[in-house]
């Protein structure tokens, strides 16, 4: 099971690959839409890649609840437990 920091770093890599956003800007308190300007389709790509990387399932209905990077990290960590 990955630590919170490991999930954050892994997620930052995924966000960087999809959007080109610098990994250092992908912080827990950042909003995917308002701060990082990630649209709904890029968000879905990030979700699918995160599922693969962390071995978790993130249902479509759950994606709208992942407002910040921290929300996603917490959901992934909870799912891995």
């Amino acid at each position, binding site marked *: 099971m990955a630590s919170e920091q490991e999930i954050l770093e892994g997620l930052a890599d995924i966000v960087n690959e999809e959007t080109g956003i610098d990994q250092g800007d992908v912080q827990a308190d950042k909003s995917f839409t308002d701060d990082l300007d990630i*649209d*709904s*389709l890029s*968000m*879905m*790509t990030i*979700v*699918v890649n995160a599922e693969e990387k962390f071995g978790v399932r993130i249902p*479509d209905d759950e*994606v709208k609840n992942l407002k910040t990077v921290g929300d996603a990290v917490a959901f992934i960590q909870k799912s891995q437990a």
Partner: protein
Amino acid sequence: MSATSKGFASALSSGIPTRHARISGVGGYRPKRIVPNAEIVDRINSSDEWIRERSGIIERRWAGPDEGIIEMSAWAAEPALAMAGIEGSDIDAVVMATVSWPYQTPAAAPLLAEHFGSKAAAFDISAACAGYCHGIGLASDMVRTGRADNVLVVGVERLTDFTDKDDRGTAFIFGDGAGAAVVSASDTPGIGPTIWGSDGAQWDVISQRESWIDVHEKDLGWPTIGMAGQTVFRWAVWGMAPVAKRALEAAGISADQLDAFIPHQANVRIIDAMIKQLKLPEDIPVARDIAYTGNTSAASIPLAMERMIRHEEIPRGGLALQIGFGAGLAYAAQVVVIP
């Protein structure tokens, strides 16, 4: 006492040899009225840049009152018949794929057959954006089994009749148009096996929002088509890339042998993500007709193929992988020889 068979089942003849089928002609009709993003942005509080980023769409065509389902189909079919070198009297069956023919019954296909002076078998199929590839698969089987020598397959939509012009999820995507193909008997294989399927558990992901009965009984005015964009995106990219691979495998070819990739023109973002998932070699031309045509559902693949042939982007006689996917959720894919 149970009923007893007379025992003649083994005497039944299907009367049909097996042979090959190919697409012998393709044609398209695009409505006259060009609608740029600027014309629709106000009602969805959007911008040209926003629409281009999220869909790749620059403009689409909206059909006028004189561009009905049958008229557009006929104008798309005429060049397809000409390319195939046949006339209306040579058509053995008409298969129309559409979700926007405004009559519950009869189907549109008999009217199109009548337009060409044909009394051939004629029926519609309802498989939304996968309808054209369903039609090509059916037509191929009809020709291969000897049931028909020439089948006219048309994908046609007036989606704007069922579009909520205030819906930020769909108003900028849908367009109108018609694409047609003729499937004919062939000495060599021209249409690979069709890989198809559906997922009715997700029937409401893309659907007419209310049933006709609810519209009538609850006085809801007029139904429009709704779509859960993120869910469709996930299914279309990560669900359909394996289907495309299976169509290649079934045809016995590898991706690098393709001369064209013609996916349903749903959204450029879906197309780009699908290419990535398929690891499609970069030199293979990919249909991007959506930029100027929008998403025309059943019409999108033949329209895209028609444009690529007309612009000489793809070689006649080469191999194209085509895949349709949409409401149902239904999908169909096959490899075809470009006419």
